[in-house]
Structures are given as C-alpha cells and as structure tokens.
C-alpha cells in the first residue's frame, strides 16, 4: 500500500500595485469605488489597458456606484474557506452605477430565491479596510451601503503594496522504494540501486533509472561505503524567509562515495566548521541514534533518512583537480 504524505505550502506574495491599482485600492479604504475611462466605456474592475486592443489607458479614473445592478449570478450553496462569505451566497456580476462592465463579487442575499437579474445591490464595507477587493465584504440587496464593524477610517498613506498568501495542501504518494531506502537507513545501511543496463547507481530509493527509464527493485540493491570525499560545496548565509530555521552561515557539501560513482548532493556537515570545508576533504557518514526522529521523506525528493550528515575522518585530503567537477 503506497504511503501518502500531506504537506501545506504557503506562497507569500507581496505585489506592488502600480499607479492605477494603487488608486483603486486606496479609494476602497475611503469607501469609494473607481473605474477607468476607456473611450466611451468605464471599466470596472479598472484595467491599465483596453481589453479589446491592449492599448495603454490614460489614468482617467471616475467614481462609480456604490450601488449597482446584478447582471448575472450563481448560487454557492457550500462556500469554501477561500470564499468571502461563509454561508450560502451568490457570486454575481454587478454592474455598478456609472460603469459599463461588471464586477464579480459576492452577494449576501440569504437564499437563491432572493436573487434575480436586475436586482439592486450595494456594498457592505468592512469597518477595517486595508486596500484590497475584500474591503468590500460583499454586496447586499438594496441601495444603501452598509458598514460591518467599527470604522477605522481610510488608509493614512496611499496603498502601494498588496500581500497575498496563497496556501495549498497537497497529498503526494511516496514510492515504496523511497520508504525502503529510509527503512534501510535506520539499519545504518547506505543502499544504492544499480541499473542493469547502464550500471549507474542511484541512492535514496529513486526506484528507476532516469537514463534508461526502467524500474529498479530490490534485486538491484547494493550496499555502499560509509566514507567519501567532498567534491564541491557551498556556504549559505541564511536569508530569513518563512520556514528558514538556520540563523548562521552553514555548509552543504557534495560527497563522492568511496568505491562508487555515486555523488550525494547537498549534504549537511557535522563537527566541521564552515572555514574548514575544502574540496578533497575526507568525510564519514553520521547516523541518527536509534529512536531519534528522522526525515521520513516524501513526494519526489531524495530522502536519506537516518543518514544525517558527514563529519571529517582526519585522513589526509585527496588532491585531485577533477574532483570539483563531480556534483552529480
């Protein structure tokens, strides 16, 4: 039975808005909705170019609404966490008064029976507005705008940046060969799979040869040495992006395993100061203690499980100018 691993990825975006979107978003904090003139038309949502021709539009903004007319709608009986209204609502094309194109937004009407083409709606503003389209919590039936919560007023400065955190949860299959590699690592075995055609060896439970595109199984396993030579390395000064736990410069080394052509890429070092990392340095595998939590791997990446890094053996360096070329 294939194991699945679930992971949630957050993509934190900071978008610069530019003059047109900045004016629109800033106006939202003032409880005003802007369109842009495009010939005889007034585009809402505003665009920086004519959607028909692609021609750049002069920044000729005009206030529209706040009320408008529903042009079309569909009922959402089961909202998702991303939707702006957390009870059944309508998504509708709302033609704001003065606009010639419709804005898609939510209408909180209570029931589908309360929705109709041609119905009049007005915005329900959030009390706290930050310059996002969701400063309009939704539209509500009628002519009168509403305010949801205490009014914190317009933005003190023009809104020029918009944060947007995309967040997605994935479930990926872990190939059985990857689980097996991790299990063998718990026994402090570094096992490769040798392709019967090209005789290259792969570690980390890849399960197939990427050169010959054939599946590899247990019959192709071979035990590899626990010692090797650093062929190349990188010293990383950590940038504090979300999820980065390192705070000081650290090394990642590439290790050519003895008696093989296998290079393990991007390996952690242990008891090896950054200043002492060199090409040609001899290193030995360090294994997690029994019972210690290890990276069980998942998805498509290579996991070495209980092999947690490499420490110096104390042997003399290997002096081979070609070593540095081996990163694969």
């Amino acid at each position: 039975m294939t194991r699945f691993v679930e992971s949630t990825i957050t993509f934190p975006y900071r978008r610069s808005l530019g003059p047109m979107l900045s004016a629109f978003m800033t106006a939202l904090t003032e409880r005003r909705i802007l369109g842009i003139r495009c010939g005889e038309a007034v585009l809402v949502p505003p665009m920086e170019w004519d959607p028909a021709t692609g021609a750049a539009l002069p920044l000729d903004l005009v206030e529209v609404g706040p009320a408008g007319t529903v042009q079309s709608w569909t009922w959402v009986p089961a909202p998702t966490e991303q939707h702006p209204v957390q009870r059944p609502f309508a998504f509708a094309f709302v033609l704001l008064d003065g606009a010639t194109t419709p804005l898609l937004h939510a209408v909180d009407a209570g029931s589908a029976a309360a929705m109709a083409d041609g119905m009049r709606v007005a915005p329900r503003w959030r009390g706290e507005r930050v310059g996002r389209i969701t400063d309009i919590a939704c539209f509500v039936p009628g002519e009168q705008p509403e305010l949801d919560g205490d009014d914190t007023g317009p933005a003190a400065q023009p809104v020029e940046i918009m944060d947007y955190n995309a967040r997605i949860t994935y479930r990926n299959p872990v190939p059985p060969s990857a689980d097996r590699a991790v299990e063998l690592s718990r026994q402090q075995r570094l096992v490769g799979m040798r392709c019967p055609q090209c005789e290259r060896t792969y570690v980390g439970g890849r399960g197939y040869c990427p050169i010959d595109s054939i599946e590899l199984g247990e019959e192709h396993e071979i035990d590899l040495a626990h010692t090797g030579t650093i062929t190349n390395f990188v010293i990383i000064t950590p940038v504090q992006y979300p999820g980065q736990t390192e705070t000081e410069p650290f090394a990642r080394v590439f290790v050519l395993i003895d008696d093989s052509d296998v290079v393990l890429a991007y390996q952690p070092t242990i008891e090896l100061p950054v200043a002492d990392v060199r090409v040609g340095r001899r290193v030995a595998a360090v294994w997690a203690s029994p019972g210690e939590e290890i990276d069980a791997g998942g998805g498509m990446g290579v996991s070495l499980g209980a092999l947690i890094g490499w420490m110096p053996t104390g042997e003399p360096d290997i002096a081979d100018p070609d070593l540095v070329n081996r990163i694969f």
Partner: protein
Amino acid sequence: MGTSRDIAVIGWAQTPMVRHTELTETQLLMQVITDALTPIGLTRADVDFTCLGSCDYITGQAFSFVSNLDAIGAWPPKRDSHVEMDGAWALYEAWLRLHEGDIDIAVVTGSGRSSTGDPSLIYPMEMDPFFLAPLGADPVTFAALQARAVIAAGIADERSMAEVAVRSRGTGDVDTLLGGDYVRQPLRRHDLPPITDGAAAMVLATGERARQLVARPAYITGFDHRTECHNPSFRALDDSPSTRIAAAAAGLGDAPIEVAELQAAFTHEELLLRHVLGLGQEVIVNASGGALRENPIMATGLIRIGRAADHVFGGGRRALAHATSGPCLQQNLICIVEDGEGQR
C-alpha cells in the same frame, strides 16, 4: 504537402484514467512514453526533441517538471522543452520545432495528478491576483456564469446540457439528472467534469520518417491558438471569438471534417463550441466521452488530438481537435489532422 516537412502524429498512448493514482507523475510518464513509442518500433534514443506539458501548481512542487525529465531518458543530453500548459500546447511547440527541419521525431506529453490537491481551492489562486483570487473565484462559478449566458443566447438549455452529459458518459437518464440539486445554478453535478489523474504521450514525425514508420500518419494540416482577456468581466460569455479565429486560421472551412474532439469540461461548453465552430449534425462530436468522462488536467487537451488522430489512423479523412485553458474558454487551440490522400 507531401514534402519531408509534413508533420504527422504517428502514435500516442494514455495511462489508465483514475480518480486517484498511487503513482507519481514521473512514474505515469515513464509508463506512457514507453507505451507510445513501443508499438511504432521506436525507443527513447530515437527521439530528437521532447516537450512536456504539466503544472507545478497542481503538483505542489517547484520545478516538478525537472523530475519528469527522468521519464524521457535525458542522457546523452536531449533537446527538451516544457510548457506550463496542457500537452496540446506542448504539441504546438514540438510542431513548430519540427518545422526547423533538422530533426525528425518528437515526443510530447501532458501529465497531471489532480488528486494531489483540491482543485476547487487551487484554481482560484491562478485567477487575477487583485480582483478574483482574493474572492476565491472558482472555476465552477465561472462556468455557471458562462452557462447562464449561453442559455440566455438560446444556444443551450438545461435539458440539452443533460443530454450532452448522458451521451458523453454513456450512462444516466436526462429526466433523472434534471431532478438533481444545483452545484452552481444552472450547473448540476452531471454538468461538471470528473477529477482524474493521468498522462498522455504523443509521437510526431516528419513526412518521410512518418510514412516509413506507420501506414496512416495523421498529418497536422492546420494548427492555431488564440487567447482572450484574462478577466471574464470583459468578455462576451455567450461567444468564443478566440475559438472562431483559431479555427479559421487552422483551415476548418477548407474541407468537411468527419469528427470533432472538443475539450469541453462542462456540458454547455460543448454546445457553445459546436455553435461557434458551426459543426453540423453530420459531425461526430466527442465520441470518446471527452472531458466529461475523463479529465486529466494538463493532458485532457492533448488526448483530444490523440482521439482525432485515431480517426485518421482508423481510415478517416479529416478530424478537428480543440483544447482550452483558462476560465470560460479563455484560450483556445485548434488542430486539424488529415490522412495524406489528395495531398501527395
């Protein structure tokens, strides 16, 4: 036509189409590329160019297409490309590449594991980041708004849409289906595509090689794709001008077609596309069941071209395939395949 620069589909394959596969995308591709090449007597070493269509956002891994390269046997180094689009657009790039004239064989793929994430939560994030993504504007909502426009224009009604569903899936009863609840009015469950994991691979060859390798190559005689404004607020949703322009550019009007494979994930899309393309009753549309039966995102469009090629392989003269991308048929591709009769 008839020169060595004719370009033809000479074979293709698809994986089993399932709701949830236990294979990784790379494993799907390893299998399906082998399945496409083997019946023609080719190996990966014969392939001069590959172009893979897939989507990192669906896979949940940046540069996921790099692991997919393991499936093409990329050593010695190969000419390779990738599109973050359906495999139909990978085919377009390969077709252009073969026109350069220095190579003969190309493989294109489309692959996706939709079950990796929740499509209803992923696709809103691909929408306009300022006006649509923050609202969670989802593809079924957009499809419903387009369906309303198509119904208002008299091109479809809920009954004709249910008939498309029954014909595509070969199961169900129109009156029963029309008794179901709306998912997004006017769309019911049967109007929506299934969620499918799968991949497809297609082999292209230039004229002389194609004729050596297979009895009936499916020559690509017309190929074009066009796009419209990204935000459906600015589009006439009861029309698909990009489809119409692409079809004209691909030569749809030059001769009759016998079959059409349309990438219509929603029932009303098939009716709108038939209308826009002017397909008469004599044209067999989506005999395969189309995207309503199996919808492996990133491969669905390529499979339409494979099904059209199957028509030519099986003795047909001329077939049209359509692929689409984006909300409410934003971007549309038309590929026409023909047998070689009367052209050589």
